[in-house]
């Protein structure tokens, strides 16, 4: 038992958790490794608060970054983030493991973002039309050589370009990067067809690449 505990990986960042007994800590570690997101959510639905803690620990950073990159404001992102997790908490009894937890939770995030955009009168997300010309003008997979060397500059350019992206394209890119979702999952989370999701992602990637390829 102790050997197994020593082999188990340590979480990347430990949340402030109350001191636990060794058996309980071992159970938590096993659950952290073995249990899927869906299982954890179902356990939380049955009243296991530790399952939710693990779930939260797994997804808090990607979800927060997703929201922050989308709205561009930390205070708003925090509000949306908190509201998103409260929706997860309140949906514990209705959750069914039909789809991946990430698809479900990012769908909630997407809907929350839609509400936010509508409330702020930002209709660009819904009416944006992708420009084929931008896609065609951008050379594929060609990044400036100096940017490969200077990662810090590359990151800054990429983040700046990300802000400039249309909301739908940025969302598709963020869902892919933060949520590690496939085209189908992105389509399911955002409520569009796979082709639309694929198109948005392609435009986003092409524009970001183009921004990195430009000499500042």
């Amino acid at each position, binding site marked *: 038992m102790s050997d197994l505990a020593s082999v188990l990986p340590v979480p990347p960042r430990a*949340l*402030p958790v109350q001191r636990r007994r060794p058996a309980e800590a071992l159970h938590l570690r096993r659950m952290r490794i073995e249990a899927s997101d869906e299982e954890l959510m179902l356990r*939380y*639905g*049955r*009243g*296991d*608060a530790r399952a*939710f*803690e693990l779930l*939260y620990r797994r997804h*808090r*950073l990607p979800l*927060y*970054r997703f929201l*922050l990159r989308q709205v561009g404001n*930390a205070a708003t992102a*925090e509000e949306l*983030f*908190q509201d998103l*997790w*409260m929706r997860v*908490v*309140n949906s*514990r*009894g209705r959750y069914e493991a039909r789809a991946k937890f990430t698809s479900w939770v990012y769908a909630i995030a997407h809907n929350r973002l839609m509400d936010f955009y509508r409330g702020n009168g930002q209709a660009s997300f819904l009416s944006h039309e992708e420009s084929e010309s931008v896609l065609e003008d951008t050379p*594929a*997979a*060609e*990044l400036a050589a100096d*940017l*490969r060397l200077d*990662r*810090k500059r*590359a*990151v800054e350019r*990429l*983040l700046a370009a*990300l802000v400039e992206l249309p909301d739908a394209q940025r969302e598709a890119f963020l869902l*892919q*990067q933060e949520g590690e979702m*496939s*085209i189908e999952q992105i389509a399911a989370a955002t409520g569009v067809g796979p082709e639309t999701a694929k198109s948005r992602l392609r435009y986003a*990637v092409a524009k*970001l*690449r183009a921004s*990195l390829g430009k000499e500042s």
Partner: protein
Amino acid sequence: MIERGDEELSHIYRDAEGPRPPQRVDDNILAASQRVASTVRRPAGFGFSRRWGTPVALAATVLVTFTLALMVFERESGLDTMARKAPRTAQPAKVAPPEPKRTESSPPGPPRAASPEKSPSVDLPRAAPPAAPSPQAATRSDRVQQHTVETALSGERRATGQPARLPAIPPGVEILRKSEEAKPLPDAQRGFDAQQPIRPAQAPAAAPAPGANTLRESASAPQGAVSGLASRVTASEAKEREKWLEDIRRLKSEGKATEAERELAEFKKRYPDYRLPEDLR
């Protein structure tokens, strides 16, 4: 799906220093989740009741239905009435002893404490010489009531055919009784009216020992009513005994030796532990 160039893009994106949610947001969310989970948590017996609730309810329903059906069936077939009649007829013979016969002089409603069923401790299997009655008890001689008590006691004895069961007498009480036996009778008790006729046959076959009664009543102090009654019984018993002895003396003096012997024998039989006076020994 992700091309090689896109992978490079991903690497660059992930090199970006990831913003983190503030600590207070983490705390708020986790606290809310735990608060909700604690309300969701069910009591320990919930699973058991959910699992066994339905079968137990069904079994209870079947049992009640069967019992009701059986009762209705019994009532209709008459088994129930027969079963009820049987104990009803047997009940009086089993529970209630025969009511003691009241003499003509006994009042219609004797005191409740004098009932033999209610005060079994009044009777004793062996007679003992009477203890010296207290002056108060001697002066308060309610003859009618005493006679009723006597009759009731003897009646109980006749009904049961054996001495009434009594709780064990404490050793201290036994010592007291023996010391009382050794005491001579007081003079005041000996001198009584000799005009009363001798009625040994009317005396109860085995009257309770008055001295023992007194001691017994003193041992069971809370029964105040029974104690007073017993003292009265003792006084009347002593008087009756003295009358009897006086009659025997008179028979002797009149020359009726046979009758006197017979009466004396009867007296000894009646009071075997009584110490006879010198002139009658």
